[in-house]
């Protein structure tokens, strides 16, 4: 891109071709630099966070600009360097948080509000990242075919008695990689590999679809037990638009695994402040807002995620189906650090093949 000037001399046509582009470009770049703004690069779908962002703007008058893409935004922040327009980076998982912090693209936030709102296991000891919501990776069991107490732990999924009866999405999906990462942290790599092989041997079908699709498969009799994140249950059982999903949800029980030992595996969605944030004050305000009572309540209401903030009233649905359970308090950083190992284990046992 260095030599637009030079081209001019060479040919009128060249000039035309290059100058046709920025005409439209000028229209777009506008929004980044006005006074009261905060800019988010988000790896979470925009429609999931829109209600909270709107509430923030309504309350503070600060405009929130968003770009959503599941991948590539960390690289964008990295290359844009000190000129990046991103103030905050939102993620649906600990994995990308771990990557962006490790690349040194974040900065610590010293906020008593965040410290008060977010329990210590859901934020970085060095204040580089903060969890906003949690969810558990649970086992959905068929009401018809699985008796209570028949399956109790993640480890049980590898028990040969479930041969041909287990469903899950791709082993490479970040939620499953986190779970495998926690198995590696608990049992060591060799044991985790054995476990993964056992689960693989029990699969009813090649891993496919999202978490909802697994519950649906239980309903359809493809399998008896399935792995899935907890909030999908809420999304299905309240789905007036697709009533068949209510049927899927009604066909399963929710099992929070490993209640007798370490507890159910937890994931977070979270946020970081970029190192070169231009609207730092506004960005921290938004972080505090998202960890505050209103946004936390909305997360539970709208997305059926668990609020991180202690004492936030959960929705009645969460209370009814996902009341008290024991959550694994394993360090999320450990789980994230095991992600690459987990991914290789998935390859090694041919989990997705």
């Amino acid at each position, binding site marked *: 891109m260095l030599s637009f000037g030079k081209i001019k001399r060479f040919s009128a046509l060249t000039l035309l071709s290059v100058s046709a582009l920025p005409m439209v470009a000028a229209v777009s770049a506008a929004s980044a630099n006005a006074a009261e703004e905060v800019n988010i690069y988000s790896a979470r779908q925009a429609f999931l966070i829109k209600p909270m962002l709107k509430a923030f703007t309504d309350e503070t008058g600060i405009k929130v600009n968003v770009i959503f893409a599941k991948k590539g935004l960390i690289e*964008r922040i990295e290359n844009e360097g000190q000129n990046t327009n991103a103030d905050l980076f939102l993620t649906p998982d600990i994995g990308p948080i771990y990557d962006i912090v490790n690349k040194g693209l974040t900065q610590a936030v010293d906020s008593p509000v965040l410290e008060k709102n977010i329990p210590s296991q859901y934020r970085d000891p060095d204040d580089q990242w903060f969890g906003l919501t949690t969810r558990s990776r649970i086992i959905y069991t068929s009401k018809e075919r699985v008796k209570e107490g028949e399956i109790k732990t993640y480890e049980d999924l590898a028990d040969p008695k479930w041969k041909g009866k287990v469903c899950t999405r791709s082993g490479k999906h970040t939620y499953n990689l986190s779970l495998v990462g926690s198995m590696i942290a608990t049992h060591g790599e060799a044991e985790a590999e054995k476990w993964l092989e056992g689960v693989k041997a029990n699969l009813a079908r090649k891993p496919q679809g999202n978490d909802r699709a697994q519950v649906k498969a239980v309903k359809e009799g493809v399998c008896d037990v399935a792995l899935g994140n907890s909030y999908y249950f809420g999304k299905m059982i309240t789905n007036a638009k697709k009533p068949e999903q209510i049927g899927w949800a009604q066909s399963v029980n929710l099992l929070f695994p490993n209640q007798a030992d370490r507890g159910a595996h937890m994931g977070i969605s979270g946020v970081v402040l970029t190192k070169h944030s231009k609207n730092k004050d506004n960005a921290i305000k938004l972080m505090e807002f998202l960890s505050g009572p209103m946004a936390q309540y909305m997360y539970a209401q709208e997305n059926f995620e668990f609020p991180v903030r202690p004492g936030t009233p959960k929705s009645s649905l969460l209370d009814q189906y996902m009341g008290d359970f024991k959550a694994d308090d394993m360090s999320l950083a450990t789980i994230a650090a095991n992600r690459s190992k987990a991914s290789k284990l998935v390859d090694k046992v041919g989990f997705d093949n």
Partner: protein
Amino acid sequence: MSSSSTQPTPMAHKPPLAADTSNLVSTDSHRRWFFSALVVAVLVALPVVSVFYLSLFPSENIWSHLAATVLPTYISTTLILMIGVGGLSILIGVSTAWLVTMCNFPGRKMFEWALLLPFAVPAYVIAYVYTDLLEYAGPVQGALRRFFGWSSYQDYWFPDIRTLGGAILMLALVLYPYIYMLARASFLEHSANIQAASRTLGCTAFQSFLRVSLPMARPGIAVGLSLVSMETINDFGTVDYFAVKSLSAGIYDTWLNMSNLGGAAQIASFMLVFVVILITLERIGRARQKQFNSSDRFKTLERFELRGWAAYFSSLTCLLPFIAGFVIPFLLLGKYAYENFNETWSEEFLIIAGNSFLLSATAAVAACLVGLILAYSKRLSPGRGLVGVVRFANLGYALPGAVLAIGVIIPFAAFDNGVDSLMREYFGVSTGLLLSGTIFAVLFAYVVRFLAVAHGSVESSLAKITPTMDMASRSLGLNTFQTLVKVHLPLIRGGIMTGALVVFVDCMKELPATLILRPFNFDTLATYVYQYASDEMLEESALGALLIVLVGLIPVILLSRSIAESQRTN
């Protein structure tokens, strides 16, 4: 015009075209074209160079792990996918193109344009649609269960759409139009004379197809096939949804799950090398073929009149891909869009559709201009190393979109930060990001990604103009630019138009690069659809998907007209 200094051609064994035009050299203007083309080609090649550069810095060596575990699967899956999609696309595209061009049967006129319509449907959308229809809970299996009284999954067997075979079918249904389009253009160009000759020599319709039309259309089919192959190899949406583990799955896994962008870039580079080998093999295969059209090629052709079974069979052959690739997805999306119209419609849609339209139109014009500069310069200065550079610049098409986006981010950000630090140093002002995160970045990515389409289209039209035209024009005193505008452009108008329309539709559907490179609060129809579709919320995304198809229809219909007209007006 300067004196024509006859430059010795460095490569003595060049085909006649090369030798002839370079003898006309007016050194200055040729040099200008040459350097313009070189600069443009290098700019367009930057993202691919960036990816190669990235591949030098893997966070760890990925290959021993891959080779010991999933690499064989990735490679065999990718090969089967490419052969399957390519083969099926040729089967559908060539047979239907020949039928509607050379034969008469019921519905022929409608099929001429209808067969192009599946091109407007994005591959990921057709994948969602057919999964929705054919899965266990879908209407097809539901009806079967009710009809036969089956009650559960275990009672019967039904083919699973989410398989390698399913992915091949889905991709072929929306990609065959590339081959249809190019094969049809070839058939039209060669048709009248040669077909007449073949009939005089006693060929039946089918013999004439096998022995005359097919060999002559081979260059066109080959170009179409290479586009289909590159689209297939860079696809992620469909294969991911169908849990098919191709090389692009490996790229994203290495990048995102193993935090190894360098390793991912290595797999992408490996894929590019693979594509280069394929294309080179094909070129070697037809290196000796060279075809120019004589002036009386556009006589109205007499079609074979098909009757009885042959006619029905032809109609059916054309009807099937049209129904499966367009009618069914269109109706299902239409149904969902209608049912959810009140919840999903908003004023926003107009802006988003406008974004898509403007971006795609600008990108189409830009890609064709760049393609024209490259193709014409190559014609003027053959054998000066431009060919290699241009081929390299065309490789962007084979990169998965998200990887291409990273390839765009790197040089753009480097430029922005370079300018910024210079300005800070000398003038004490910060210019911030000038190009990164603007629509220009998105447009640039579109041009890089789809240049292969525009360039291929322009180049093949240009190649059909006999060099005697250039000589005549130049000897009458026109310079290179005037020759291009007054002689070539009118002749290749159809080719440019085709290229522009195809790029337009491709841009309407483009997703991964747009997602990553776009400015704040900016959506195209594709990104809007994606945020719901990626959560398997087909109903919410249906209206947007329908709009992509509808806006895409306009150019597709124009395209079909321009192909048909090229026959009449020339």
